[in-house]
């Protein structure tokens, strides 16, 4: 580009910027009217000159900027968001979740003018804002079932069908949910809130959001006024899911000896197509008859799996496991992140929820490993279970199965436990959804 064009462009840009600033100042006057009407009126009455008016406008503009409205809470949360993004990019900790959530945390904590009851329709908790509309999917529990549809369409239940006894490990690890529930009650949360917090022990983000949107959404549940704990619970669940490779191995090592960690399991048998088709149908009917509260989650999970296994709806299964789950993950991650607005999120209760969440993951892992050891007492010597796979009973799919595989390889580089661990892992998904349904039926 020739130098004279550059100069012309710079001048044009400067004019546009001046025009925008002028327009903004004009608008901020009207926005800020209720707050500082007295100031404006007095300025008008006294007939102050143009310079004073400009100064007044600039002052109001500054009062609307993030720099003016920032609180230490906002800055702390923005730092947390940056940490999430760093962990995802640098250490590859669940990047598909932590990047949207981290960015959401930053978006949700950009400070803006909120005084005097003015609704600028910017924040996630302000009626009519775009983020508020997107947040409806979380508050009304729409996103989690859609995520489950995608999970169903990408999950292979073969390992579970071939070794049905491993289903029990998925049930055993749910002890984390119920002990955390009791822990939350002990710490003073009311019954529905404790139920919502307990589900963090299921290590299943969508289930945690689904249950907290029903039990701890700030409305009256079970005759009790609840607080809005969706944000802290979702962030705790997803954070600890991302930290499964850090939380689980020490517990697994503590509860097993070297001999147990090197147990080789019998290879899984081949599963017929007929079995794979029957599984989602039968499991859907059985589990939802027992726990109808889990219908939105389990209905979608098994529907997605039927799309995959039927073999005649490949296009639908492909959409569910790719585009659909990706879109919902983006919206869910972003809005859950944005819901951590400092004034709502940074409370002592959030800290308690985070402590309980960490303990629940430890308890759930321990529950699965210990139960695997108990099962070994009743198993024949050629059909033992490697107790490490009990840790996969928490339903962080497929992270905890991957952790089991890594731990197994550490002690025997030829012992691949991944496929065995997938059985309790997917059973854990079913178990935590059933537990969520039971909590709903008890506490709503």
């Amino acid at each position, binding site marked *: 580009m020739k130098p004279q064009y550059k100069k012309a462009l710079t001048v044009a840009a400067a004019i546009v910027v001046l025009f925008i600033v002028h327009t903004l100042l004009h608008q901020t006057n009207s926005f800020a009217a209720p707050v500082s009407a007295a100031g404006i009126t007095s300025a008008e009455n006294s007939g102050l000159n143009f310079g004073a008016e400009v100064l007044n406008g600039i002052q109001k503009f500054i009062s609307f900027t993030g720099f003016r409205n920032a609180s230490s809470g906002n800055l702390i949360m923005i730092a947390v968001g940056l940490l999430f993004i760093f962990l995802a990019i640098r250490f590859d900790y669940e990047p598909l979740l932590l990047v949207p959530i981290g960015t959401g945390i930053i978006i949700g904590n950009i400070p803006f003018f909120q005084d005097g009851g003015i609704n600028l329709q910017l924040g996630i908790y302000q009626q009519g804002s775009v983020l508020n509309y997107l947040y409806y999917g979380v508050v009304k529990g729409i996103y989690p079932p859609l995520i489950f549809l995608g999970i169903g369409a990408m999950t292979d239940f073969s390992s579970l069908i071939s070794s*049905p006894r491993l289903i029990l490990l998925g049930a055993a690890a749910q002890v984390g949910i119920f002990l955390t529930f009791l822990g939350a*009650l002990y710490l003073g949360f009311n019954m529905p809130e404790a139920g919502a917090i307990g589900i963090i022990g299921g290590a299943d983000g969508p289930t945690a959001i689904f249950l907290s949107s029903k039990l701890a959404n700030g409305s009256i549940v079970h005759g009790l006024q609840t607080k809005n704990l969706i944000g802290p619970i979702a962030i705790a669940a997803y954070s600890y899911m991302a930290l499964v490779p850090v939380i689980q191995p020490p517990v697994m090592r503590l509860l097993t000896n070297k001999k147990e960690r090197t147990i080789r399991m019998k290879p*899984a048998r081949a599963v*017929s197509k007929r079995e794979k088709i029957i599984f989602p149908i039968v499991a859907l009917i059985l589990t939802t008859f027992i726990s109808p509260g889990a219908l939105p989650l389990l209905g979608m999970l098994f529907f997605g799996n039927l799309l995959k296994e039927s073999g005649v709806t490949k296009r639908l299964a492909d959409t569910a496991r790719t585009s659909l789950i990706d879109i919902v993950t983006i919206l869910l991650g972003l809005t859950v992140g944005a819901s951590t607005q400092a004034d709502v999120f940074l409370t002592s209760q959030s800290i308690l929820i985070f402590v309980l969440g960490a303990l629940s993951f430890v308890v759930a892992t321990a529950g699965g490993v210990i139960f695997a050891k108990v099962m070994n007492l009743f198993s024949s010597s050629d059909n033992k279970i490697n107790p490490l796979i009990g840790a996969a009973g928490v339903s962080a799919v497929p992270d905890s199965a991957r952790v089991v595989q890594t731990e197994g390889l550490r002690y025997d580089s030829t012992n691949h436990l991944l496929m065995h661990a997938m059985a309790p892992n997917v059973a854990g998904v079913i178990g935590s959804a*059933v537990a969520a349904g039971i909590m709903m039926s008890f506490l709503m």
Partner: protein
Amino acid sequence: MFLEIQIPATIEEGIVIAFTGYAIVFLALLLLFYLFSGLSKFLSWQIRQNLIKTGRFPKHIKKEDDLHISGETAAAIAMAIYLCRDLHDDESNVLTIKKISKVYSPWSSKIYGINRWRKS
């Protein structure tokens, strides 16, 4: 007393809910376990009956033997079949040359991407 622990009144109800809830989760997955253990046996029995009916049941297999094969065995058999049938050791030695013609389009024509009349 060194430490006084105050237990909330709701904890008693909570214990009942926790025990009952955990039992129900276990029950649901236990039922799935029994169902799919039974289903696999039933399907195996059905295959055995079909083979017996059609006279294809191998004589060296006892009737009570497990007919299931492991995924590893299935993979080995599949690999053997692939190597036996699909590996192209013998070629037909017939060469076919197909002429591929492209439809002319100015949109992909390189000549229009060059500024021939550029004046400096």
